[in-house]
């Protein structure tokens, strides 16, 4: 009887344990953001809200965080624009060198970050471009483009060309068709691509490390801090980002579920 229960529910038990395992470091990081840590945030010394309240008093944490947001936003806008254009061209038009284009888009995703990082660093060194915020943005935009193309392409492929034809039949100019028909229909894919780009940029360390010079992003701050003792304020920033992201995901999933339900009813 007990044996059969286990046989039937093994996968439930396994998966529950697997989720617990996946969440352990997250819970740890969040809990230690409330640690009254003083110098090193390794052992538990009691609960405090000070780390959250006096966050920016820790040298550099807030600046690094702001830098990461800035880089993330600019790189996302650039990569999403360039990537969406490529995605539309790939699905809608026939052109020469199509296979070469696809390969060029695939390769950055298949190249390890150290190679991308050292390659860009070698280029900037040869060209005499000083490393800083600009080089970080250039690098992030590069590795985000392919992911944008992959994400938006699926959306373009599922778009019914009859919609655009209807627009043209009603004497809309090509610009109007794009602004009123194509773009709104592609928007969910574009938003997903932009969120993915931002997440990739925000958490990137390896490529950033090779191309940032004195410019400090949040992951770079963490890497330097890891060697000499991580301040609890770093956990605060990471925990706050985590809560915002998880709430955004849950809200979007709930609204998608509600939409499905509404469509099913009609």
């Amino acid at each position: 009887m007990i044996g059969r229960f286990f046989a039937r529910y093994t996968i439930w038990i396994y998966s529950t344990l697997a989720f617990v395992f996946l969440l352990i470091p997250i819970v740890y990081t969040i809990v230690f953001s409330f640690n009254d840590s003083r110098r090193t945030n390794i052992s538990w010394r009691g609960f405090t809200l000070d780390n959250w309240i006096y966050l920016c008093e820790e040298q550099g944490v807030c600046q690094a965080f702001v830098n990461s947001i800035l880089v993330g936003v600019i790189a996302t806008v650039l990569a999403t624009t360039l990537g969406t254009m490529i995605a539309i061209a790939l699905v809608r038009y026939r052109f020469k060198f199509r296979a070469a284009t696809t390969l060029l888009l695939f390769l950055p995703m298949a190249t390890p970050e150290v190679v991308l990082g050292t390659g860009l660093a070698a280029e900037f060194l040869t060209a005499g471009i000083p490393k800083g915020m600009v080089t970080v943005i250039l690098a992030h935009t590069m590795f985000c483009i392919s992911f944008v193309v992959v994400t938006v392409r699926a959306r373009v492929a599922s778009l019914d060309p009859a919609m655009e034809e209807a627009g043209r039949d009603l004497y809309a100019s090509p610009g109007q068709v794009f602004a009123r028909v194509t773009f709104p229909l592609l928007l969910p894919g574009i938003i997903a691509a932009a969120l993915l780009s931002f997440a990739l940029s925000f958490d990137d360390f390896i490529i950033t490390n090779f191309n940032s010079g004195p410019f400090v992003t949040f992951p770079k701050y963490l890497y330097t801090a890891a060697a000499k003792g991580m301040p609890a304020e770093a956990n605060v920033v990471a925990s706050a980002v985590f809560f915002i992201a998880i709430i955004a995901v849950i809200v979007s999933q709930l609204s998608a579920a509600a939409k499905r339900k509404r469509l099913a009813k009609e």
Partner: protein
Amino acid sequence: MAFGAFATSAPVVDSAPRRRSKVALLLLLPGIAYLALFFLVPLVSLILTSFQEKTPGTDIGVYNYAFNVENYAFIFRTYGEHMLRSVFYAVVATVLALLFSYPLAYFIGVTLRRFPLIQALALTLVIAPFFISFLLRTLAWKQILSDEGPVISTLKGLSLLGSDAHFTGTAGAVIFGLAYNFIPFMTLPIYTSLEKLDLRYVEAGSDLYASPARTFFSVTLPLSAPGVISGTLLTFIPISGDYVNASNAFLGSSETAMVGNVIESQFFTSQNYPIAAALSIVLMAAILLLVSIYVRRSGTEDLV
């Protein structure tokens, strides 16, 4: 998400009339030019740098263009061990991530089909680690698994481990960290494959008196192969170039240094750009070779 698209490789329907290739050119040109400038040129630059040599009497970090093959001979002589170690760690960590992820992906994609809300929640839990910095996650494991941490001290208290045993800094810890950090990259593509799995095929297997194991290996696994292939690539490639897990400040020690660690120290500490570049080129060549063999043997070349 992108991983889904990466896994499905849905054929693009050629429905629209192919017209106005000038527009196509205008749409493509900026992005392609960008990738040429910041992906292809850097690769060329990397190759050129890898053959550079030092001119006697110049400052540290200054090199001249040359055709100095000695750089490559040097890295194979000196860092052969690091290269083998990288491949070994990457293979073991990828296999571990696969073994961990497959049942989980099956659970989310097949078992939870009847419960869409729980399924959405489960997917959120799988991607949750993405939302907390990669470096902090790894550091958290370092502290949890440290000699004074809860896991090791409990095991020592139960005499399951000797009092001088330690885990962080060992190959096991680095492989553990690598596998943990890339689990979502493995689980998501497998999930996308299994989510579309038509269960009638599985039923057909058992109707034909195949054992559950036989059904799994002859029906379920082959049908989810595209997900397994993109999952292993999405884990193997970043793992083989990673240097965070294996570094001293995280889960590794000097005995666990991978190629990425050598590249980092050559680049920043020694400022020996030619050696760092040569190592990057060898790493990329090795990965392209391994990946192309793997992709060819598994029979799917259409990955994008």
